[in-house]
């Protein structure tokens, strides 16, 4: 397929893999965290780990939006869905997430009107078509999906659609990264940054990772060659002793992100004082809620919710998996009590969850370790290893080694400005 196959070319991958092997110092261990579940999925789906030298380990991060929703919120969702007047709309991934009394799919089997949608605008359309029903959209996801929820809310308000509301569970990625970086058992050498989130928030919010925590970040695309190139760029930074925020995904991500999308979020949502993340616990200012002036479209204001905090099942170690402290298969219930057919933890539900990805795709990939690679000569100034990935910014400055860096050189320099404590510009509640 055009615009896809060129990012999956086996020969380009093999060349890049050789260069990665050349950069990895024998005996040194590189633990790189891919923050986003989309990357986890791509890594397993394409067998990327097979192309990495044994020194490089990919650790799966907290960026699976399904995986981080705590059980109590899922219970709240089911309580709304079970109201007779409600049509509860949700992305497909949430249907099987286990809550205290089964999943949304089970609630649907008991009679709740639960419908799968692909976009919040589909939910709004249902609201228009069913004026005598209450249509609720289960909003989840990072800054990637928040703008579409925001735009839908603005449209509902403009059209005066009153039988539509949003159960808002949007979360923001930076506080979760901060929580991981401040965790005492941090073992991560560098981060593969979330590409889609960055199209919205830009690169600035990650600077503290390089500056305050001394870990390099490369914001990456989602095709397998993107991920491999990002690993190469991270190893390059580590080899040079650099620690910067670099942009591999230049064909999509701009340094400033998407101001229009951020504006739509700001217009409709504000930060919660705190929000519980599954496995990570409560993280201050890490999630969004609807602004008070939109309370007419806020499901939390319109429906009574149990709002009971439910502890994760004792055996479930999703938290440790999300922090990268343990690998999926090190969890006590992995593959025994917890399987994709009958998940206990959220990481086993979504195809972006580390456990489901590992269970479904990963088993064989792990079986065949690569031979410890030799160290081919990689003089500076070698031609681009990726065999000409098309780039929308051909004039972008090139890094030594020839890989296109971010369109603006400034992102690779630690900023001297004030620290980016909050995701750029989201208002804080008073």
């Amino acid at each position, binding site marked *: *397929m*055009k615009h*896809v*196959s060129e990012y*999956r*070319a*086996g020969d380009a*991958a*093999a060349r890049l893999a050789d260069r990665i092997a050349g950069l990895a110092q024998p005996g040194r261990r590189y633990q790189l965290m891919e923050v986003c*579940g989309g990357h986890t999925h791509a890594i*397993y*789906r*394409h*067998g*990327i780990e*097979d*192309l990495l030298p044994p020194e490089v380990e990919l650790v799966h991060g907290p960026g699976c939006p399904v995986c981080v929703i705590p059980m109590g919120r899922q219970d709240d969702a089911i309580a709304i869905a079970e109201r007779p007047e409600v049509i509860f709309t949700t*992305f*497909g*991934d949430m*249907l*099987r997430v286990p809550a205290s009394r*089964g999943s949304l*799919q089970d609630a*649907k*089997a*008991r009679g709740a009107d639960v419908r799968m949608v*692909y*976009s919040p605008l*589909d939910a709004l359309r249902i609201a228009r078509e069913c004026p005598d029903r209450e249509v609720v959209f289960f909003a*989840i*996801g990072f800054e*990637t*999906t928040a703008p579409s929820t925001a735009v839908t809310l603005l449209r509902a308000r403009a059209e005066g659609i009153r039988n539509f509301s949003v159960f808002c569970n949007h979360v923001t990625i930076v506080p979760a990264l901060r929580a991981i970086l401040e965790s005492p058992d941090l073992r991560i050498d560098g981060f593969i940054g979330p590409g*889609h989130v960055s199209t919205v928030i830009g690169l600035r919010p990650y600077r503290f990772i390089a500056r305050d925590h001394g870990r390099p970040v490369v914001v990456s695309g989602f095709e*397998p*060659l993107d991920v491999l190139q990002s690993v190469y760029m991270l190893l390059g930074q580590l080899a040079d002793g650099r620690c910067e925020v670099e942009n591999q995904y230049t064909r999509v991500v701009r340094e400033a992100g998407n101001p229009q999308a951020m504006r739509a979020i700001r217009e409709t949502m504000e930060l919660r004082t705190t929000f519980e993340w599954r496995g990570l616990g409560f993280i201050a200012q890490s999630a969004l809620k609807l602004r008070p002036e939109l309370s007419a479209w806020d499901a939390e204001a319109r429906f009574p919710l149990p709002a009971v905090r439910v502890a994760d099942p004792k055996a479930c170690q999703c938290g440790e998996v999300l922090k990268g402290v343990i*690998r999926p*298969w*090190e969890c006590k219930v*992995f*593959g*025994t009590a917890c*399987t*994709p*057919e009958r998940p206990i933890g959220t990481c086993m539900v*979504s*195809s*972006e969850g580390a456990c489901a990805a590992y*269970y*479904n*795709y*990963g*088993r*064989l*990939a*792990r*079986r*065949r*370790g690569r031979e410890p690679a030799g160290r081919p000569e990689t003089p500076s100034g070698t031609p681009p290893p990726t065999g000409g990935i098309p780039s929308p910014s051909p004039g972008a400055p090139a890094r030594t080694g020839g890989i296109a860096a971010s369109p603006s050189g400034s992102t690779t320099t630690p900023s001297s400005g004030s620290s980016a404590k909050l995701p750029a510009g989201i208002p804080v509640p008073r």
Partner: protein
Amino acid sequence: MDEREREAIERIEARRRRPRRRLLEEQVTLAHGAGGGSTHALVESLFLPQLANELLEPLADSAVLDFDGGQGRGRLAFTTDSYVVRPLFFPGGDIARLAVNGTINDLAAVGARPLCLSAALIIEEGLPIAELERLARSLGAAARSAGIPIAAADTKVVERTKADGLYLCTTGVGVVAPGRALGPSQMRPGDRVLLSGTLADHGMAIMVARGELELEGEIASDTAPLHELVAQLLAAADGVRCLRDPTRGGIATTLNELASAADLSIVLDEVALPIRPAVMGACELLGIDPLYVANEGKLVVVVAPEDLDTALAALRNHPLGRDAALVGEVRSEPPGMVVLETAFGGTRVVGMLAGDPLPRIC
């Protein structure tokens, strides 16, 4: 890989090979109808123990029974299937054609020559007669063009909202040529796996036709009767070991069933998988793996290596096998599993479908 990880992997693989799946839910959910692991659990733990008999137990596309009609022995193929597709009409077909072709294909997949079909219609009160007439015409046209008569039929009407327009059940009978054994037990390491054409057309055509995706595309269902293609293939190539009709759950589920029944491994080559660009595009957009999407006019063929060229040529000689391709190989290790060698140079396991195919959200 350390000892603990090896143990975890062995645990997963043992589970995958476990012949009987347990049914853990308290209520039927849509996942039980998706054709993957949950459907297997429902069939194997709830129905099979009650219906236990040697005709049903192979769980093949059709049962094959020996009979003696007084004038010598023969073998009959017998199968049944219900159709609940929504919408009733979609690009490339409708529920009636789907039902006729689907049952013919279940017969063809055991190597049978179909003799006749039955059709039972459950109709919802309020269905416009014009639509029913269109479907009746389509039912007749599909049977005529396949050359298989509908020899028995039944109609029932239920109250409004008790059926989604129309449900249709077809049953088929065919005869199997003597002396030809087909099935997973015939598979050997080194055999090749062929696919008679492009992947995932039917499932994606239905998703687009539902109009919920605001996707427009020229994706048409591949629904087609495969009995003539199968006859041509079996006449040409003696080395055909096994045939399957990969419908619900896609080729991933079908190949898992074969690998598990044969206790062998199937290794697929991602680059070789035939798929239309529009279908691939829709799958990428929705985050759906085409290996798990339904087909309604495709055949998976396992053939001995010496007959590979003959079988491929026989398939390609028929209009329904024009895009036939060699997509994989049977190996002995790891038994019971399907593995994909990715275009990117890695490998991954292709499991059986779990739940409904869920689109990823970001």
